[in-house]
């Protein structure tokens, strides 16, 4: 499975790590619901660390898309909410024309 840690690159991880990642991800989500930005940062950093430490970094030139994307560790609550509404956080890609 390929996971992208935003700003860090892509990592190949063992499939069985996914369950553990999902658990932490759930805690991150709860932190957003509670409005607890510090805890959100802790959880996101935990996700990033787990992927970076246990995964294998793919070369920059590798072109495969990722199965999961870990948002930046210093994501603000507002940015996290943008992520849920699907607006704002990630800019549109350039459209030809």
């Amino acid at each position, binding site marked *: 499975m390929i*996971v*992208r840690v*935003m*700003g*860090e*690159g892509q990592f190949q991880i063992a499939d069985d790590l996914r369950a553990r*990642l*999902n658990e932490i*991800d*759930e805690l*991150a*989500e709860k932190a*957003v619901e509670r409005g607890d930005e510090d805890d959100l940062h802790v959880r*996101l950093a935990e*996700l990033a660390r787990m992927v970076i430490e246990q995964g294998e970094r793919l*070369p*920059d*030139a*590798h*072109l*495969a*898309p*990722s*199965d*999961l*994307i*870990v*948002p*930046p560790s*210093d*994501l603000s609550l507002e940015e*996290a909410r943008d*992520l*849920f509404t*699907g607006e704002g*956080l*990630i*800019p*549109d*890609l*350039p*459209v*030809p*024309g």
Partner: protein
Amino acid sequence: MPGLMNRASTIVKAKFSKMLDKAEDPGETLDYSYEKQLESLQNVKRGIADVVTAKKRLQMQTAQLEQSVVKLDSQARQALGAGREDLARSALERKSAVQQQLQGLDVQIQQLEAQQEKLVESQKQLQAKIESFRTEKEVIKAQYSAAEAQVRIGEAATGLGEQMADTGLAIQRAKDKTTQMQARAAAVDELVATGALDDLTDDQTDLDKQLAQISSQSQVDTELAAMKAELGTGAPRPGELPAGGDGQKEEQAS
């Protein structure tokens, strides 16, 4: 339960298919938008330059404020030595205000540093992927039938699109951060300019003047005392002269 990771992944994919929807052949789309990709690389470079500029400005302010701390500290000592605890207190109060500003600046410089590193890394990755996509596309076109090539190129393009989204976010966040920092730097400049931080870098502060007064007064006193002592030993006069310090010569006028 869509967690943050899944949401991020879904949104990136959605942004990418929105881009691909505009054309029938993803390979051509990416070819066509190659110029755009190069533009976005230029954007990263500009973003990095902006971050560096903002960082330099904050570093300069830090240096200024650090000088103020040293100066205020020595002024406090000088004032205390002259027995002016009130002045010493006011110098220390200002010093503490400046130190608070410094701490804030420190954190922000570190944040900018982190943004800069992220952008540089992101730029490197995007550049590598654009290059890789270009060559891979040609290889695929040469090896597969048109229909199959289109599928395979589409897959490769998704990987590139994801990197573009990642880099796009890095640029956007760096821009936000830089704007915040510029506002903050301007606020510190203004504080200094309006005297809220009391002309910290100005040599003629109130404190300076008062301290100069004290020191010139005590020099006068010392000289007076020395003169009195000289005169006292050379030609004895009626009425004893004070040993020095708070010389009040008028008392002996009659």
